[in-house]
């Protein structure tokens, strides 16, 4: 279980998170939605320890992430970044097998390569892609490689940061479906941040809406369309009028 309690984070005078409370049940998939600049990515980076909290606490499986051994904590994690964040200087298979080639999960070179190829196959990429460099791949293929890297060590927890940004609707659907399949198959706890409603409907068990630094609504995906929450309604239906100010 992941639990964020009263999380605050500011950058100078910009108060991004003003008391975020989120709870993700073990093995479930929570999608955090919200407009651009509402602090979704900051929330995710707080959990990962990439950004330090000003106030509040984050517990993963009962342990405070700021007081636990960071390496042990991260060894359970996989993450798909918005732009893929693949290492340009490494071929695709070494990107996927990055953790398997170094550190505590280190495997023999050939074994790591075979695992990487298997993970690539799982996300729908052939063996031929393994020796290519990320720059030689399309955006959709890069996302798949990023996904393969995220699941390379069969993590207990996976984070997805805007998984469909920059992809066409068909490729978005493919990535959403892959994410859902993999999360269910692995039984992992997943947290996704997105503003793509098709992703929300495909991936989420539960949804949390972040606006103005606080969670405005949280509930199961089944309640998304009849929440009676004006913020959520405006966001889900993409209306310009409502409590969320739209800059024209």
């Amino acid at each position: 279980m992941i639990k964020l309690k009263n999380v605050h984070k500011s950058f100078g005078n910009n108060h991004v998170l003003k008391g975020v409370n989120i709870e993700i049940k073990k093995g479930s998939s929570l999608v955090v939605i919200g407009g651009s600049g509402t602090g979704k990515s900051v929330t995710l980076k707080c959990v990962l320890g990439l950004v330090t909290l000003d106030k509040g606490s984050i517990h993963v499986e009962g342990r405070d992430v700021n007081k636990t051994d960071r390496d042990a904590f991260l060894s359970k994690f996989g993450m798909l970044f918005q732009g893929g964040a693949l290492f340009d200087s490494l071929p695709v298979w070494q990107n996927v097998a990055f953790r398997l080639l170094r550190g505590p999960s280190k495997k023999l070179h050939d074994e790591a390569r075979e695992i990487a190829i298997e993970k690539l196959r799982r996300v729908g990429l052939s063996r031929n892609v393994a020796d290519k460099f990320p720059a030689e791949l399309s955006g959709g293929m890069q996302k798949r490689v990023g996904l393969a890297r995220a699941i390379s060590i069969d993590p207990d927890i996976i984070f997805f940061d805007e998984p469909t940004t920059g992809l066409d609707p068909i490729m978005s659907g493919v990535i959403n479906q892959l994410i859902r399949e993999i999360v269910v198959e692995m039984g992992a706890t997943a947290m996704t941040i997105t503003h793509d409603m098709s992703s929300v409907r495909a991936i989420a068990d539960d949804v949390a809406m972040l606006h103005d630094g606080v969670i405005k609504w949280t509930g199961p995906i089944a309640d998304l369309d009849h929440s009676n929450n004006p913020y959520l309604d405006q966001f889900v239906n993409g209306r310009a009028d409502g409590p969320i100010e739209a800059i024209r």
Partner: protein
Amino acid sequence: MTITGSLSYIGRNTLFFLTLIGRVMLFASNTLRHCVTGPFYWRELFSALVQIGWLSLPVVGLTALFTGGALALQIYAGGARFNAEAVVPSIVAIGMARELGPVLGGLMVAARVASSVAAEIGTMKVTEQIDALVTLSTNPMKYLTVPRVLAATLCMPLLVGFGDAIGIMGGYLVGTARLGFNEVIYLKYTVDFLQIWDVVSGMIKGAVFGFIIALMGCFYGMNSGRGAQGVGAATKSAVVGASILILATNYILTEVFFTA
């Protein structure tokens, strides 16, 4: 601008400059700490040795060759004013080994390496590759900074030695082909006047400059702003910062080595 405005401007810039010095010092001490604590990424170190050392040979060699030749011409022209043309071989050798080899080599490597390191790491930061390293349980300082700093510190003395030899050869070529020196006498004067300490002091300077070059490249890369403009600014700052530090450090080392 009013007096208050001017004072405020000076104060702001002074604070910025002092903060920058503090941040660079902290970054340097962190780098040194990580240099002596594992894990070490040998593959990355080897790759950095090739990128920083091997691929800098042409730049350093060409710079030294032309500098040695020009130095011979200048010393010959200057020496002719008081009939001291014979000092050309010894002054070229000492000048290259003590000063021009390390300083010009350092500046050329700074232009080549500090810029590329800052741009590479800056781009990695902008595209979240640094964050990805952290999530993959890999310390970016150990994976990116340490190999580059070690490689530059190890390679620069060798590059300086190589530059010294090529620079002296440049002087020899100009001295014998253009200024009419006898080949044997030119070499004899070079060897007789050049002392081991001249070469070693230059190589020590090279090691310090190598450390500075990679450190500045990594520091500005890691602290790059967003977007193309941020990476561009980081690259520029890395080269300017490394160059100024090389020149300032060169003066301090020269004081320590030759006047203390």
